[in-house]
Structure formats: C-alpha cells, structure tokens
C-alpha cells in the first residue's frame, strides 16, 4: 500500500485529500503513480493539467522521476505559496 495525499487547489479538484492504494504492477515512480491516477477518469484530470505539479515522497520534495515503493507516502500539490 502507498498513501497518496493531495493539497490545496489540487485537493479540491480531485475531491479528496488522502487515498490509500495498493501500488499497481509496473508503477515504480511518482510520475507512474500520477499517470495511473489520471487513467482512472475525469475526476483525476487535474493531475494532468496542473501547471508545475509538485510532489513529495516521505515528506521530501522530489522530482516526478523519483522511485517509489510499497509503504511510501506520496504527495501531489501545486507550487507552494506560504511565507
């Protein structure tokens, strides 16, 4: 299982802040997980159209090419705007 988190405008667009799912066969990077979610249908298209989509694995901001494995916490979000 991986935990997938969504924040801010992306959370609103996909309609959920958190989902647990079994890592599908062949999905072994952040980008792969994103593409898997997009393929589910309409609700997930914000992951495809998001400008400058950001991701974190186990709470470190990482490029979408980063490898993931069972047990990871993966987060998707727009560029940060705090401060």
């Amino acid at each position: 299982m991986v935990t997938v988190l969504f924040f801010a405008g992306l959370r609103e667009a996909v309609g959920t802040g958190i989902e647990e799912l079994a890592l599908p066969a062949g999905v072994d990077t952040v980008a792969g997980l994103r593409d898997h979610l997009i393929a589910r249908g309409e609700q997930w298209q914000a992951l495809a159209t998001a400008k400058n989509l950001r991701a974190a694995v186990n709470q470190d901001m990482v490029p979408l090419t980063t490898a993931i494995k069972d047990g990871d916490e993966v987060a998707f979000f727009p560029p940060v705007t705090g401060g």
Partner: protein
Amino acid sequence: MSTFKYSVAVQAADFDLSAEVRALTAADHAAGAVASFVGLVRDNNDGTGVADMTLEHYPGMTEKALEEIVLKAGERWELLGVRVIHRIGHLMPGDQIVLVVVSSPHRGNAFSACEFIMDYLKTQAPFWKKETTDVGSRWVDARVSDDDAMAKWRDQIGL
C-alpha cells in the same frame, strides 16, 4: 563557547516578535546582531482587494522542511540562534503570517541567513494560501520572483 540553537513551529496562534528575540538572545551575550522578518497579510494582491485568507499546510512535512532550511543556513553562516514560526488557519489583513529571527555575532551573517531562510521557505515549505477577494475565493499563484530569489541563492552558495 556558544552553540547554534534553533527551533521551528507551525501554529494557529499569533506570536510576539520581541518575546521571540528575547528568548533567542537571553541565554548569552555573544550576539551583537539580530535580523528579523515578519510577513503580514496584505489587503490586496495584484490589485484585487483581499478580505481574508486561509493557510493550508502539509502536517509533518512543514516542520521537517523548515528544520532543513534552518540547518542549511546554520551550515552556511556563523549563527547563534534561529527561530521560525509559520501560522496556519484563518487570517485577516494585517495579521502576522510568518516570523524568522536570526542572531549572530555580526550583522552581515544575520541579514543573509534571515533573507535566505525566507526565500527558501517561500519555494520549499508546503504551505498554500487561499484568499477571499472582491471577485471571489482563489488559491494564490506562486510568484516567478520567488523562484528567481531561490535561484539566486543556488548560484551564490551552490545549494
């Protein structure tokens, strides 16, 4: 021998700048310089009036990101203390959002580290602002100028 001490907090509660400066400098009198930054909620953004704001964050990762930022500053400059507070939740124009206090024996290091921490926080710490404006509610867009500020440090100190 003075050692580097730091702490970060993510909280809904407001903070007092003077009290944070005193707490950071009370332990010894080696600090000659304290540089601070306070970010406030503005009543307008890109020409549109802002009525209020909500700060969303990624619990756990925010604290971790802030600590990493502070430690990077502590490696790069001679610092005595750093305190970072970032508020979350509902805020009004004029409210304090973020605090960075840096103490050092000398002012050049304090200024550089304080600005570095803010620039880094702006692009790396997982907070998002949603504002209620004259034309409705909207998520604030990231600024290219913030990426530029971050890129400047990457060039300067090789991060």
